């Protein structure tokens, strides 16, 4: 079985980080597994970790009164789940539920924040990579806001 460090080398999020930085990040990681339907985290709980998905799919959900749980987005293998651990108030804003069997690497955000505090270069490199993920998801979200299929006329 690959070490966490070896797994990290194939994750786009960590591309370009030095072996020493990967070693530090891997030191905060552990492999985890979730059954279908199981929650990775819950809205309003403390955000103390994030996940890199190795297998399976995760749905970010929110509960809407009268509608129940609504899926905001699904994330697949290779993608990162969770950035609230990086920013105050360190609290989740959505539920994350395993849509299928999920195998992931979980990273201790509190541990990593501590390492970033003592190594600002690592902190900058990590935050800029998470910013890329956020920008991408913001762009896709803006496209969805347009509701392009709502009154489409292509036939």
């Amino acid at each position: 079985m690959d070490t966490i460090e070896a797994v990290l080398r194939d994750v786009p999020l960590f591309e370009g980080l030095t072996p020493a930085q990967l070693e530090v990040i891997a030191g905060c990681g552990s492999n985890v597994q979730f059954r279908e339907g199981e929650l990775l985290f819950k809205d309003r709980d403390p955000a103390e970790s994030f996940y890199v998905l190795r297998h399976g799919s995760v749905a970010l959900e929110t509960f809407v009164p009268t509608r129940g749980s609504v899926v905001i987005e699904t994330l697949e293998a290779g993608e990162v789940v969770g950035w609230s651990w990086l920013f105050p108030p360190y609290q989740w804003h959505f539920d994350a539920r395993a849509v299928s069997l999920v195998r992931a690497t979980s990273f201790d955000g509190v541990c990593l924040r501590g390492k970033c505090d003592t190594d600002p270069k690592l902190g900058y490199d990590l935050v800029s990579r998470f910013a890329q993920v956020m920008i991408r998801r913001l762009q896709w979200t803006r496209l969805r806001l347009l509701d392009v299929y709502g009154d489409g006329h292509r036939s």
Partner: protein
Amino acid sequence: MAIAAEARPAVGPMVPLPFRVTKRRRELADTWTLELEPVGGERVLPAPGQFTMLYAFGIGEVPISVSGDVSGPLVHTVRAVGAVSRAICAAEPGAVLGVRGPFGNAWPVEEAVGSDVVVVAGGIGLAPLRPAVYAVLGRRAEYGDVALLYGSRTPTDLLYGTELGRLRGRFDLHVDVTVDAAESGWHGKVGVVPKLIDGAHFDPGSAVAFVCGPEIMMHFAARALLERGVPSERIYVSMERNMQCGLGHCGHCQLGPTLICRDGPVYRYDELERLMAVHEL
């Protein structure tokens, strides 16, 4: 061989020919697929990507893309959004509609032989791409990796759902589907269709992409393809404007220097990107 409108001198390209509805199938709440056979005349054999002008007698005429296997009966998938398209959707088997065409150019299915093929469809934009998918699958061994990436608004808006499920079972085709929004319990993907491009297996350097859907969706899909490394001259999009004559005479479908009914609807993205950015067009 396609029977172009020009090949019917007896009636001329502006005269609709009578076609009888032989089958009618409801696809979605507001979308129907019709099969049509000529009343007495010759069959129409369009190329994938072409459209016809469908005429609901006494109501009006609209451009509708061909959505079936081009070697079979004339097939159109129509969304009821206005008086004419509502009348066409309501045409029961036995009813007669007018048909002019086929018009326009085609997806470059032949030119793509030897390449990987990435088909990106949004909403009812899957309909104009379906003939191209059939054409590629009909000669599957002549192409590299083939991916069909499809997005719709919600799970209940997925067009050709049963067929997509069947295609997904093929070992020689990568089918990926996403929806913009879903309630809990949907086991598929939620997100925009351009996002699927990241996860599709193809060689960007040798891939040809066919993209069809709402214009803004095509813009984002083309951008994602470019970021993946597909050259813009190998990305094709299908445009839609106010097509009326189908022959490039009336000018209603003008887009800058081009007339979509005559020069399109299929364009290379490198030829169109600049025009798509002009708000006034």
